[in-house]
């Protein structure tokens, strides 16, 4: 073997002298066609659709699996997908879905009602990942197969947002999963880095922490919007952790689209020929949550003082203008959103007025501001806050925390810090997704770190989620929004824009705000070759 190695080294040396560093290719080509390279910072540890989700994971899940419905467009709309049509009973408890008969899993099996039933049962029984969305309203026994292509869901109680969660419940092929089951694990071990889906792509190379490749399915049952001719051979999701490296990769054409550049980078790279910035209004809200039950921030006047002292313009500047201030606890793109009049904006006189009314008229206190370690923008906003509160003689201690520790501390009134910066992305377009954060039943969750307690609001939220009448709900949500703003359980921050930088030859990019930060629908993408 060594002889062979040595001989080969010699040959390689010869080759090396003739081959210089190959110039960066415009985009990757293989013998099967063009491959799109997505440069992202976040790895995909577990692909199993019922176990884990975050933006990178869900982007690939979305590519290899199909769900009953799919969100598309801006503003996001629910589109039929595996389910061609559906109906609901008058009491809002029973939902029946009719499946597309052409849908096929990658191994050729048809997507049947049983597969849907099994997938939902699996998600509920594993009690991980997406389970929280439905488990309070749907039991595994409530799902029944009517015929091969009809499936029925019986909810425990009417639940208006039900439909809005379905796009995140992907359908797996029960035959394949069962074949790989170990010790009754519902095939969890196998699905970690394998897939049993029916989506437009199937898995290619899987090199954890390095890259994940999906290959397009030739005869995808739903067809290809860009036309079969333009269909890319596949997509490589390449882990590039450093923004500088991402930028370099994009400039050299090693990546066709990247996410996660710094706000300043986007401004800079916009000027590079051949690079296009996708800049869209998002749904991720940013708030500085007060602990309303304990410590100085239990004092509403102090909370108001802080809210009026904050330099809101600086929040926008942190994003180089790619953000808009919140006008309500609900994001603008959400159904039922109303612009609440009298949202606090910087007004030092008013801030001092409130401070004088509070128990800390002279300031002289130090409040912690906790953010997730590594989240740059949250840290910068901390600096803005620090700067803004100086006139009130309030000192801010900026404390980064690991996410698990932050969540653990934030689950109890006693340990929850006075101020915590929290980004929340609603997973559905239904207002309940955000409103419920202000329900007392949410206490203990990271987004409920303010321990907001207003029985009237809780009551209205309960009423709204049980109602099937949209007009009634819309009115309730308007009241809820106004009341929350009045109570100031948090500083309502801004909605940051979603941004990507891509090469101009990358076509078909479709934005939808309901997706997570960084997440892209890979299905319609294609490369326009000269």
């Amino acid at each position, binding site marked *: *073997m060594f002889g*062979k*190695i040595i001989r*080969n*080294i010699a*040959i*390689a040396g010869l*080759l*090396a002298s003739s*081959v210089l*560093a*190959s*110039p960066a290719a415009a985009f*990757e080509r*293989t013998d099967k066609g063009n*491959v799109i390279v997505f440069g992202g910072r976040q*790895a995909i*540890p*577990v692909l199993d659709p019922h*176990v*884990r*989700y975050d933006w990178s994971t869900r982007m690939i899940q979305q590519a290899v699996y199909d769900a009953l419905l799919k969100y598309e467009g801006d503003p996001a709309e629910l589109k039929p997908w595996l389910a061609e049509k559906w109906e609901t009973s008058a009491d809002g408890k029973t939902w029946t879905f009719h499946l597309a008969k052409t849908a096929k899993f990658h191994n050729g099996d048809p997507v049947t009602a049983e597969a849907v039933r099994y997938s939902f049962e699996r998600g509920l029984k*594993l*009690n*991980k990942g997406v389970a*929280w*969305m439905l*488990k309070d309203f749907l039991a595994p026994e409530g799902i029944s197969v009517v015929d091969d292509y009809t499936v029925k869901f019986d909810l425990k109680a009417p639940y208006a947002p039900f439909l809005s969660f379905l796009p995140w419940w992907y359908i797996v092929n029960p035959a394949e999963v069962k074949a790989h089951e170990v010790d009754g694990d519902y095939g*969890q*071990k196998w699905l*970690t880095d394998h897939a049993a889906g029916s989506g437009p792509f199937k898995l290619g190379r899987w*090199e*954890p*922490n*390095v*890259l994940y490749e999906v290959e397009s399915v030739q005869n995808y049952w739903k067809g290809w919007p860009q036309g079969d001719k333009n269909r890319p051979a596949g997509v*490589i999701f*390449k*882990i*590039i*952790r*450093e923004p*500088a*490296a991402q930028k*370099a*990769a994009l*400039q*050299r054409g*090693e990546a066709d689209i990247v996410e996660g550049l710094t706000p300043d980078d986007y401004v800079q790279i916009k000027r590079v020929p051949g690079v296009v910035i996708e800049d869209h209004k998002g749904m991720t809200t940013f708030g500085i949550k007060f602990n309303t039950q304990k410590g100085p921030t239990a004092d509403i006047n102090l909370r108001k003082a802080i809210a009026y002292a904050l330099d809101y313009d600086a929040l926008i500047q942190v994003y180089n203008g790619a953000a808009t201030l919140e006008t309500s606890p609900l994001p603008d793109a959400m159904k039922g959103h109303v612009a609440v009049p009298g949202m606090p904006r910087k007004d030092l006189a008013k801030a001092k007025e409130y401070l004088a009314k509070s128990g800390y008229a002279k300031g002289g206190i130090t409040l912690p501001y906790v953010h997730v370690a*590594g989240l740059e923008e949250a840290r910068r906003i901390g600096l803005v806050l620090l700067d803004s509160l100086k006139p009130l003689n309030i000192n801010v201690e900026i404390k980064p925390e*690991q*996410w*698990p*520790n932050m*969540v*653990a501390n934030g689950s109890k009134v006693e340990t929850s810090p006075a101020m915590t910066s929290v980004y*929340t992305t609603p997973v559905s377009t239904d207002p309940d997704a955000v409103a419920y954060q202000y329900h007392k039943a949410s206490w*203990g*969750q990271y*987004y409920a770190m303010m321990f907001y307690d207003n029985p009237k609001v809780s009551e209205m939220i309960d009423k709204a989620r049980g109602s099937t009448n949209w007009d009634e709900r819309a009115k309730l949500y308007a009241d809820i929004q106004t009341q929350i703003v009045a109570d100031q359980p948090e500083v309502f921050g801004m909605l940051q824009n979603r941004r990507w930088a891509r090469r101009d030859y990358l076509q078909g990019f479709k934005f939808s705000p309901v997706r997570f930060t960084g997440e892209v629908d890979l299905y319609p993408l294609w490369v326009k070759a000269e």
Partner: protein
Amino acid sequence: MLTFAFRKLLTLVGTMIGIAALTFLITNVAPGDPARLVAGPNATEDMVATIRTEYGLDKSLPEQFIVYMGDLMRGDLGQSIVTTRPVMEEVLRYAPATLELVFVAMALGIVVGVPLGMLSAVYKDGPLDHVTRIFSISGVALPAFWFGIILQLMFAVDLGWLPVSGRLPLVTRPPETVTGLLLVDSLISGRFQTFWTSLQHIILPAVVLSFPCLASILRVNRAEMIEVLQSDYIVAARAHGIASFRIVALYALKNAMLPTLAMIGLRFGWMLGSTVLVETVFDWPGIGLYAVSSALSSDFKPVIGVTLMIGFFFIVANTLVDLAYAWIDPRLRSA
């Protein structure tokens, strides 16, 4: 010899257990709930509990410790809570990349460091000596992460001579795995283009990693050479008319190699530790990067696993150094 080997093995096992216990205790003293991270942002309390039970995190710390040590005896490093996979499997997958990087860096360090050390010892207090001195101390003082970024910008972004990061170009499929070292595997399968590109990829990280190591090898070698060149037997060799070159390159070097070898062993461990920085900068998919990303998500089993693995490589390297010592020094051979 057999008792020697047996004793070494015993020490190795003992040290491994010690390291495992140490890192387990260290990483478990603080609060922190990785189960929450894994369960996802919207998970309810009972969903988090499901995960805790699954990973045995609901048990008391002493219980967890006993379970962990018991598993360790069977060669099981536990399960990563983030990737859900056995840590042993993952560590073994990432280890070759790290080893390849460390080997290349070490080779660079030795090939450059030893002759430079020799030269500056021979021309002690000359201009070359002064230059290498500043150079070598700079090597130790350079922050690897910063240096890596600067090199990346210069050679990859600005000049475009070398790739920015990673081990291989995106579409290049890695050669069939034999050793896990791409440079070797590509040669075995005769894929010269792959060999060449993977060589291009490894240059920058290897240079960054090897720089401090090169510097200290150089310094030790220089110091030793100076001492050896002053020693009586070298004076004698000179007095007996042996040619200067032969004295330096053969007689003195062999004697000076002993402490240099010790330094190489030491630096090997140091390099393994520094991969956490270099691999982060260069997106090099090795155990260092694995450790950092696990540490950042409070996933401690992989951190312990990597620490153990690094300790293991380090001990093995030092054992090899001991053997090399005995090979070079006849006084140790007979003892």
